């Protein structure tokens, strides 16, 4: 068995003169849930499409289970960003059709479709035509269609968009269950809450390039912890400021400041020894959302700086 289900290296894609994806590499461990995060238009979908061999990269290579993605299509399940089903098909037939495309027998596909739909509370629309369904329901049908053949790699492009909270939870459950079955899950999203709950590892893509790769904790560790300290009684602001690290800001009764892991214990010692007292103290790790925003903003800032420099050079030339 391969250690990595997906090994994409240096994927690059131009659309005309626009570099949509620039040297993106993705290495997805087998049996993991891997998230590809990024703002809108970052290049997530194009990266996934190249990874699966739907479109050819201008540079770079992609291997799935050690082979060309086209050679292992039957082991892959894919939910594209742009949802698509034949409106005239009944739900069960649509799922069986998608299974048949990956080599699953039609009758077995129909049987599995009924099982999946019943599990997900969709049994009442088994023989309903797609055109009569709500968008969310049709999306769930398509999701079932992408996993009905029991794939070893499931690639979901923005799977949560368009789903209500109940169906989002069902989808999370389904993703975990498929991972427990042994499948590898690769999904893209720009909703951090799902990534934070689901991902074993993740990559952040911004402005066409991969900017981060690691675990959720690795991402959160990019930013220092945040401290909120509320002294007891009416303490002198100058005395408090002297006690706390530089950059501490007062807001109402409390003071806010970032802190590194190693500085926590000395800070606590200073506070308890100062006699200012503690009416409230919270030390929180930043969420994945904060880390994501931080990374994206950094990238945007460097781009803006580059653009200004280019404009100056162009004008001077």
């Amino acid at each position, binding site marked *: 068995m391969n250690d990595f289900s997906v090994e994409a290296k240096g994927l690059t*894609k*131009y*659309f*005309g*003169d626009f570099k949509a994806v620039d040297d993106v590499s993705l290495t997805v461990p087998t049996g993991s849930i891997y998230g590809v995060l990024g703002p809108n238009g970052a290049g997530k979908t194009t990266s996934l*499409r190249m990874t*699966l061999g*739907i*479109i*050819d990269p201008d540079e770079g290579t992609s291997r799935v289970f050690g082979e060309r993605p*086209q050679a292992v*299509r*039957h082991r*892959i399940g*894919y939910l*594209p960003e*742009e*949802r*698509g*089903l*034949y*409106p*005239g098909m009944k739900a069960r037939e649509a799922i069986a*059709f*998608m299974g*048949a*495309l*990956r*080599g699953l027998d039609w009758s077995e596909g129909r049987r599995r479709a009924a099982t999946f739909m019943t599990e997900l509370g969709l049994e009442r629309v088994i023989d309903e035509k797609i055109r009569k369904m709500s968008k969310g329901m049709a999306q769930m049908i*398509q999701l079932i*269609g*992408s996993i009905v053949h029991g794939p070893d790699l499931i690639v979901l492009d923005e799977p949560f968009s368009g789903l209500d909270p109940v169906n989002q939870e069902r989808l999370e459950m389904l993703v975990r269950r498929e991972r427990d079955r042994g499948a590898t899950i690769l999904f893209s999203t720009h909703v951090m809450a799902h990534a934070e709950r689901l991902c074993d590892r993740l990559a952040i893509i911004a402005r066409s390039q991969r900017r981060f790769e690691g675990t959720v904790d690795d991402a959160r560790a990019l930013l220092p912890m945040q401290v909120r300290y509320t002294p007891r009684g009416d303490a002198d602001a100058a005395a408090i400021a002297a006690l706390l690290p530089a950059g501490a800001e007062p807001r109402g009764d409390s003071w806010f400041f970032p802190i590194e892991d190693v500085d926590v214990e000395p800070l606590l010692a200073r506070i308890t020894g100062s006699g200012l007292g503690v009416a409230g103290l919270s030390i929180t790790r930043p969420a994945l959302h904060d880390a994501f925003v931080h990374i994206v903003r950094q990238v945007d800032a460097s781009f803006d700086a580059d653009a200004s420099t280019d*404009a*100056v050079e*162009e*004008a*001077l030339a």
Partner: protein
Amino acid sequence: MTPFLKNMLVIARRDFLAIVATPTFLLFLLAPLFMVGMGLAGGMGASQLADSARGAGRIVAVVGADDVEALRAADTRLRASVARRVPELEVRIAGPATTDPIAIAREKGSDTYAVLSGPLATPRIIEREADSNAGHYLALLADDVLRLKAAGPLPAVAPKFEALSSGGTSIALQQSLGFGAVFIIFLLTLLLAGQTVSSLAEEKGNKVIEILAAAVPLESVFLGKLLGFLGVAVLFIAFWLAMALVGGLIAALRIDPAALASVQSASKATAALAAAPATGWPFFLGIGFVYFILSFLLLGAVFLGVGAQAATVREIQMLSLPITIFQVGMFSLSTAAASAPGSSLSTIAQIFPLSSPLAMAARAATDDSKAVHLLALGWQAVWVALVIFLSVRLFRAGVLSGGGSWKFWRRSGRAAALAATAAAATEQAADRH
């Protein structure tokens, strides 16, 4: 079965059922009835018009009582030998009240094309139009009557007719069969293969194309679609063949056997030269059907490939006209080839991939060599594969990748947009400094 074939059949099955299992398919299936109905109505109208026109026309001869019978006999004799249809002859005996030919020519009730009066040696002929056939015919009748009178009674002719036991095969009829094959294959292809131009529009419209592209090779998608449409076409043909057979059987059962026998003997008598294709009926019909399939696949593949590049329904509609004109072009080329077997034009039509099935079907009617058809089928199959291959490459590079489109107007549009953006950026930079 290989995965490729399996995938192809999955796509074909879906497409076939999506077309056949709809109420509109019934309309499609019965569409020829409308065509036949309209044709019958138009034909009946035209026939009635022709009949009434024929019934109203006449030529009139005003002659002495002695010449009436001789004139009628001459009309009977000569009428069969005159190529052009001559209006009915009305013979009147000359009398004081009936001798004014102008008055006769102006009589109401029917069209009078010419009136002959006066002595047969120097007849006066009033024509509706100068130098008309009707006038010349009346002069010919007068001449014939006078000649017979001058020659006196003729000895009776006793002809002895002999017929060849076998008349052989008519070259002209074989060419007609060739033309018929070209026409039928063209008509069926025109009616049925043109649909493939919009067949990928559904997948592009409802975004299923990405699912298909991720799951199976695009070649199997294209071929599967062609196969699905071919299935619909074959079903259409089978339905109408069955209807024709049933109709023929019912008609045969209702016809009096004696009348049928007389018709058969009459047709035997008239068919001095057999109307059999050079390769024989079973081979000709079989190969004709195979050529229809190849023609369908070839043109269908071209249309599918071109249609796949269209971004909107409007673009597909715009493509319909050049496609139809192109098909008519192939028909004209093949028809010309069928009417000149063995010519260089016919060779070109047989080699050019898109006219090859039509021209080769025509060749099966006039040339008895059979091995050449195997070669032609292989050649055409290679072109089907080549067209599919190119269509898929274009589709992948252009439509699916969302860039690198082959459409020059889009390329030039994008280039212009990029140039404009670059110009704006330069302008902004200059403003800042």
